[in-house]
């Protein structure tokens, strides 16, 4: 528990963990949706502070990870074209397409640029009127308002040389797809704090009610996560399935309504393929009719892309919580953060990459037997 005791209030963390131990009478499987939360849980050893039966399942909440290979290939094909400036967030540079990645396209002479914000890409378009500027708009609801604002501004400026390659994904439909999947194991959710800071949590009561799962809006700090887990366990033990907000200092029920209004104007709901999961109905956003002229897929008409995922990769099972990363035969061998075979290894927020980076090479059974030799809170 090196990091936790060094970094956060270890005493309060231990107290919450003891409370979780005291109230837990049987095994529960709880999914944290957001990749940032996965990173924090593994980094701080929070899963190792929990009773052996409380199993944290690491959800699909890393947009870099779930962006389909086909779209990565489209991005590479556009970035390669002469007269194009292709702008992206830095974490997409090394996501492998079928034959290359954006970093290599730059090495071959493509004008690939990293921007901090999609609004910076609009500035690039203003300054380069003779070039087509494309921004790679991936992300969940947290990232969507910034991407929406970029096309909103581009339209108001009358820019004809700016477009967005959109791969927006939405959290609630993914949660529902997981709950609907055959053999679903998830019994409760920690909802993603920053997604909810934009969207609020008004979409969740219907989900909680329909599938009888508690949903706790949770932050990213060790104490936030422990408190979110504690609240979920309290509900599970009591047979309750309510929506709770454990991140009230950032999240409100309604969320940011100005941002939601902008999103409703710029985007419309669409079916979207998730890498490692497949197509989930109504699980993404594409540009609405009024903004369709800014859609890079329409502007560049890239066709003839055929992709095939690795046969070794079991990221779909990791994303559903059916296996832990180390139970995949390729984990740490053929598949590493340097050579990712699938969704959960391609970004540091993916479950497999987090396990790899923090040295978690044991399978669930090995972890459980190692854990049973230790008692009390704070093992590991």
């Amino acid at each position: 528990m090196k990091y936790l005791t060094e970094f956060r209030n270890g005493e309060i963390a231990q107290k919450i963990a003891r409370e979780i131990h005291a109230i837990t009478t049987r095994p529960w499987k709880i999914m944290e949706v957001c990749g940032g939360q996965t990173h924090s849980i593994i980094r701080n050893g929070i899963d190792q502070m929990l009773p052996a039966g409380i199993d944290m399942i690491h959800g699909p909440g890393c947009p870099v990870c779930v962006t389909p290979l086909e779209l990565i290939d489209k991005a590479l094909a556009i970035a390669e074209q002469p007269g194009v400036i292709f702008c992206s967030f830095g974490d997409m540079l090394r996501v492998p397409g079928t034959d290359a990645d954006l970093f290599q396209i730059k090495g071959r002479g493509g004008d690939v640029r990293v921007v901090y914000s999609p609004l910076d890409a609009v500035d690039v378009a203003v300054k380069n009127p003779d070039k087509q500027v494309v921004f790679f708009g991936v992300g969940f609801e947290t990232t969507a308002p910034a991407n929406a604002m970029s096309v909103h501004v581009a339209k108001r400026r009358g820019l004809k040389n700016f477009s967005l390659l959109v791969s927006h994904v939405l959290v609630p439909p993914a949660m529902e797809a997981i709950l609907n999947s055959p053999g679903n194991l998830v019994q409760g959710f920690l909802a993603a704090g920053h997604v909810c800071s934009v969207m609020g949590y008004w979409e969740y009561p219907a989900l909680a009610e329909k599938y009888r799962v508690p949903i706790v809006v949770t932050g990213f700090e060790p104490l936030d996560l422990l408190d979110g887990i504690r609240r979920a366990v309290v509900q599970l033990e009591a047979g309750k399935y309510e929506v709770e907000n454990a991140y009230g200092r950032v999240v409100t029920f309604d969320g940011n309504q100005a941002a939601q209004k902008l999103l409703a104007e710029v985007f419309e709901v669409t079916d979207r393929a998730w890498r490692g999961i497949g197509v989930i109905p109504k699980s993404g956003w594409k540009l609405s009719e009024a903004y369709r002229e800014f859609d890079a897929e329409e502007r560049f008409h890239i066709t003839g892309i055929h992709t095939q995922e690795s046969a070794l990769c079991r990221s779909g099972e990791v994303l559903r919580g059916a296996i832990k990363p180390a139970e995949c035969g390729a984990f740490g061998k053929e598949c590493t953060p340097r050579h990712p075979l699938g969704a959960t290894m391609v970004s540091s927020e993916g479950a497999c990459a987090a396990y790899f980076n923090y040295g978690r090479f044991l399978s669930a059974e090995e972890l459980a037997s190692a854990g049973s030799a230790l008692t009390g809170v704070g093992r590991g």
Partner: protein
Amino acid sequence: MCLAIPGRVEEITTDGLIRVGRVNFGGVVKSVCLDCVPDVEVGDYTIVHVGFAISKIDEKTAQETLALFREMGVLDEELAGEEEQFARAAGRPQSACPDGSCEVEAVKTAVD
């Protein structure tokens, strides 16, 4: 990637279309769109994701979150400039290459 970083608003202007703030993230100052947080004023803390302010938060929460994100290494990752982002990518060899030969290519590209 979905982490929003807290920062302190130091200055508010407009570029003619949107409300823009200069926001200080523990020493790194960035230009941020404040259009969707109309109640945020100079001196307030707001959480920002990729140059877009999402909500107002109190200073204590902001400082705690900044410390956590710095500790996790995500602060540098989110706020790094373009050169640093490419340098970092250069250190990660191409992913579709299982035999390591791509490391040579990656280094070559970085030198070019």
